[in-house]
C-alpha cells in the first residue's frame, strides 16, 4: 500500500501507453505527459516500463510506504527526499515500511516529476489501462487526482532493483526554451494556410499559455493570413472544417489560437490542425512550465518522426542504466 499524505497540486496515477485504440469511442489515451521520464522511472525499479506510476505536477506531494519497496523519481527536480534526506533523481532507492517520500517545490526547469514504485500501482484496469483520465473521471484512483488519505494498492514487487541510476550522459536536459519536432499537416499549406503562415509557425518562439494542462497546450494568438476566405459549409471562419478526427499531439488552430492537443485532449472537432507533434517529442511538452516556457517547432518528415520514436524506445533499456 502507498498512503497519500499530500496530493500536492495535481498528482495522478498513469500508465503507458494509456488507453490506446479507442479514438473512435471518443477516448484520448491519457497516460504520462512525459513518457520518457515515466518509463525510465519504472525501468530503474525493475518494473515493466509501462507499469502504473505517479505523475506529480507543479510540485509538492508526500507518500508513506507500508512495506519494503524500491522507488525512483525521474523528471523535474522537486527536491525529492526519503525520510527528510535528499535523494537523487534518475536513481532507484530501497524504502521500508513507515518511510516517507516527499516532493517539494520545483527547482530549476521542468514541470512534472514521476514516481515509480516496484510492483506498480495496482488500481483497476479500465478500458485496458490504469491511466487517469480526470476530465472523464475514468481510470486511475477513482478517476481523479490524488488527495490526502488515499490508499493506493501496490502490485507484487518481483525483481525490484535498488541502487541503479540512469547513466548521467543519458539523462535528458531540460530548458525553458524548447525545440519540438513536428510534422506538417494534415491541414496546412497551400489548402488551408499560406506558405507565409507555415513559415511563421515553424520559426516563431511560441509562449506556452498559463492555462495549458493535460487537455491542451495553448500558444500565442496570431493573425493568420489563411488560404481560404471562409470555412465554406463548415462555418464562417477559415479555421473551420467539417468535423474530423484529431491525432494525439495535433496543433489545432481554433480561430487565431493554436492549441496542442495533449494526452487528455478531444478526439474530434471542426478546426484545422496545421501540424502534429512527433510522438518522440511529446515528452518535452510534459516538462514545459505554463506561462513561462517558450517553444519552437522544428519540421520533420514522417521518416524522421519514426526515427525519433525508435531512438527514444532504444533509450528505455537496461543498457541505459548502471549500478551505483
Amino acid at each position, binding site marked *: 500500500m502507498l498512503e497519500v499524505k499530500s496530493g500536492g*497540486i*495535481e498528482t495522478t496515477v498513469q500508465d503507458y501507453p494509456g488507453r490506446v485504440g479507442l479514438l473512435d469511442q471518443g477516448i484520448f489515451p491519457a497516460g504520462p505527459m512525459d513518457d520518457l521520464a515515466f518509463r525510465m522511472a519504472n525501468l530503474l525499479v525493475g518494473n515493466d516500463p509501462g507499469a502504473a506510476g505517479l505523475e506529480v*505536477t*507543479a*510540485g*509538492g506531494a508526500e507518500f508513506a510506504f507500508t512495506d519494503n519497496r524500491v522507488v525512483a523519481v525521474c523528471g523535474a527536480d522537486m527536491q525529492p527526499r526519503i525520510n527528510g534526506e535528499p535523494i537523487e533523481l534518475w536513481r532507484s532507492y530501497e524504502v521500508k515500511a513507515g518511510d516517507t517520500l516527499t516532493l517539494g*517545490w*520545483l527547482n530549476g526547469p521542468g514541470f512534472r516529476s514521476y514516481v515509480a514504485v516496484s510492483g506498480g500501482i495496482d488500481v483497476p484496469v479500465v478500458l485496458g489501462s490504469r491511466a487517469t483520465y480526470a476530465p472523464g473521471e475514468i481510470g486511475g484512483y477513482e478517476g481523479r487526482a490524488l488527495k490526502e488519505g488515499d490508499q493506493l494498492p501496490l502490485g507484487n514487487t518481483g525483481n525490484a532493483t535498488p541502487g541503479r541510476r540512469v547513466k548521467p550522459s543519458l539523462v535528458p536536459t531540460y530548458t525553458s526554451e524548447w525545440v519540438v519536432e513536428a510534422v506538417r499537416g494534415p491541414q496546412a499549406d497551400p489548402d488551408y494556410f499560406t506558405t507565409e503562415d507555415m513559415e511563421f509557425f515553424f520559426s516563431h518562439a511560441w509562449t506556452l499559455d*498559463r*492555462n*495549458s*494542462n493535460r487537455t491542451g497546450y495553448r500558444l500565442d494568438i496570431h493573425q493568420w493570413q489563411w488560404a481560404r476566405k471562409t470555412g465554406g459549409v463548415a462555418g464562417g471562419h477559415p479555421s473551420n472544417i467539417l468535423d474530423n478526427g484529431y491525432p494525439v499531439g495535433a496543433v489545432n488552430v481554433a480561430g487565431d489560437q493554436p492549441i496542442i492537443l495533449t494526452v487528455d485532449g478531444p478526439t474530434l472537432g471542426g478546426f484545422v490542425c496545421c501540424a502534429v507533434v512527433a510522438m518522440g517529442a511529446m515528452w518535452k511538452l510534459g516538462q514545459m*512550465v*505554463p*506561462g*513561462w516556457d517558450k517553444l519552437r517547432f522544428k519540421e520533420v518528415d514522417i521518416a524522421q518522426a519514426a526515427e525519433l520514436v525508435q531512438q527514444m524506445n532504444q533509450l528505455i533499456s537496461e543498457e541505459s542504466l548502471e549500478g551505483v
Partner: protein
Amino acid sequence: MAQERTIKSPLPGVFYRRPNPESEPYVKEGDRIEAGTTIGLVGVMKSFHEIKADSGGVVVRFLVENEEPIRVGQDLLVLGD
C-alpha cells in the same frame, strides 16, 4: 528592530489577491495574520490554489501586483512582527 521575512509562492502561475473579482482582498497591508492564513491564489492549468502564510505577523507590503505572473519561489509579500 522588527524581523522582516517574505512569503514565497510554492508554484508558478498568476497571483490573485482576491477569491473572485467582486470580493475584498484576502489580506491588506497592515493586517495581522496567523500562520495558515490564506494570502492569495495562484492560478495555473485552469485551476486555483490557495497560498497560505507559513508564519504569523503583520503584512508590511505586497511585492507583486494582483494578476501578476509569478515564478516558483518568488517573494509575494513582506511580513513584519
